């Protein structure tokens, strides 16, 4: 799980173009630029990083980075 968070931090830094440290309880409210448009970019970038896909339901339903990381852990290909 630590490794997933490390890589997520890199993806977040890449998408938001600033140093971000996320943990299980981080939500969209915690990062200023995290709007619905950036959410799409973020989802695509995480899918690319871990070689997996989120479902539509997951994309609209996840409440925090913890839930996101759980899905990644269960489905990652790399």
């Amino acid at each position, binding site marked *: 799980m630590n490794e997933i968070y490390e890589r997520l931090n890199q993806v977040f830094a*890449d*998408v938001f*173009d600033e140093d971000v440290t996320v943990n299980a309880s981080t939500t969209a409210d915690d990062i200023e630029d995290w709007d*619905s*448009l950036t959410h*799409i*970019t973020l989802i*695509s*970038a995480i899918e*690319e990083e871990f070689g997996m*896909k*989120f*479902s*539509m339901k997951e*994309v*609209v339903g996840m409440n925090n980075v913890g839930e996101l990381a759980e899905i990644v852990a269960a489905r990652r290909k790399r």
Partner: protein
Amino acid sequence: MLLPAFTELKRNLKKDFSSLPVIKLGIIGDCATQHIAVALRGWGYEKGINFDIFDSDYNQIDAQTMDPASELYSHGCAYVAVINCTDKLFMRFCETPLDSRKDFAQTVCESITAAWSRISANSKSRIIQFNFPVWDDRIFGDFGAKTVDSFAYQTRKLNFLLAEKSGEYKNVFICDIEGIQSRVGESALRDNKMFCIAKMPFRTDILPLIAKSITDIVLSAEGKIKKCVVLDLDNTLWGGVVGDDGTDGIQIGELGTGHAFTHFQLWLKELKNRGIILCVCSKNNEENAKDPFINHPEMVLRLEDISVFVANWQDKASNIRYIRDVLNIGMDSMVFLDDNPFEREAVRSLIPEITVPELPENPEEYVDFLRAEGLFGTASYSKEDRMRTDQYRAEAERVSLQSKCADYDDYLKSLEMVAEAKAFDAYHFPRIAQLTQRSNQFNLRTVRYTEQEIEDIAKDDKYITVYFTLKDKFGDHGLISAVIMEKREECLFVNTYLMSCRVLKRGMEEFIINTMVETARDAGYKKVVGEYIKTPKNAMVADIYEKLGFTPNGDNTFTADTDSFKFNKTHIQKGDI
């Protein structure tokens, strides 16, 4: 070709665009377009363009095009990208009564072209229309490929209709999304959940490629196009080394590994047919280098396909500079292809403006690699393009005559030149538009026009137009110059004066200036006013008006008095060709 990721392009948005030339562009679509706008602006930065984008709200095609006071029109767009998506097309198809489906493509095409007409009536924007990636619903299985009632059939037909119609609207360009899908595949292009939750018809990771496609169209329309390919020979055009292996020993032809090179030569010959000049630059002795072109039965390219052939032992950068001087084109319009990484690097470092693609190691991949690079976009195509190689070969003969003549004046006399000066006509609209897009050096104001705009100007009695053709005893240069003059109250103002650099220093400059003044005088004008607008490339014409008898006004405009003008001497006869 490896493009930067979407997130990288997004990061570019924070960079400093202030030194880059601005191109205003509007985006309207029946889907979400924000990410496309981000990718486009970010890719523009990579290509040195500051895209000033008006990105309209969701589903605003009709609203933005119908209202003459819309935000789209008030943005003053040079380009409008119209993004229709297949997802919406499918919904519309499903709503279409069964009996009307056979006419579905026609009906949709009419509504799309109606938007083109509205944009053209309300603005000067060029239009970049997305076509439709085919999404086969498989309702009929493969039978859908033959029945007019299927969605796949109607989508394919619609793409053809749009292609056909765009030929009638000269300011419309097609962004070939269907072509992109056939190269990358449906799953690389779309992600169902993205359309469901965000109305995005494309995956974010394909957006850099889409942004590149839009930008390539813009760059072509702005005249930034490739005109010439300089080719190495050994292991580039054929397998093996002709100096060692002999003409019999090189690999070329139907069979075996030679086919990779045959395929490459066929592709290059098609480039030549569409107007790209082919030249050879090889470290070889000339006799050996030319032998396969003359004697190998399976060579596709022959000597007559090559405009300038240089084979010697000098460094390639010097030889390429020589080729550039003979052709008289910009270095940035040239592409150098060589299998040898060392030669590529040497040329790249000595001539930074030239494009040197990093050819793959395996020759069977040359063509697909170059297809993906997408270097050879164009915004027009005319009959003149096919003649270009012959024209440059004739030029080489002129160079040799010149070396035999006692002086330059003698040489000009011996060329027996005849020029034609006529008002723009329908037959020549494509070539004239193309000249306005291609000419950079001999172009006084560098105003770019589409065919449609040229046609409008030709029909507008506020303008006087003249095109010029030139031929001599070695051949026909075709249409090499265009002049557009605006009727103003106090003078004729030269809106456009450009000339192909192929005919520099033949007395054509003088002939054109004389014709301008004569035309103005005959139309009852006392004055002709010309203007020079400086660009990075047109320094050669900075003082042409003054040199040829106009008086400078001190603000980069120049005036000729039609009554007292001293006409320039030329050796060109006025005539009908």
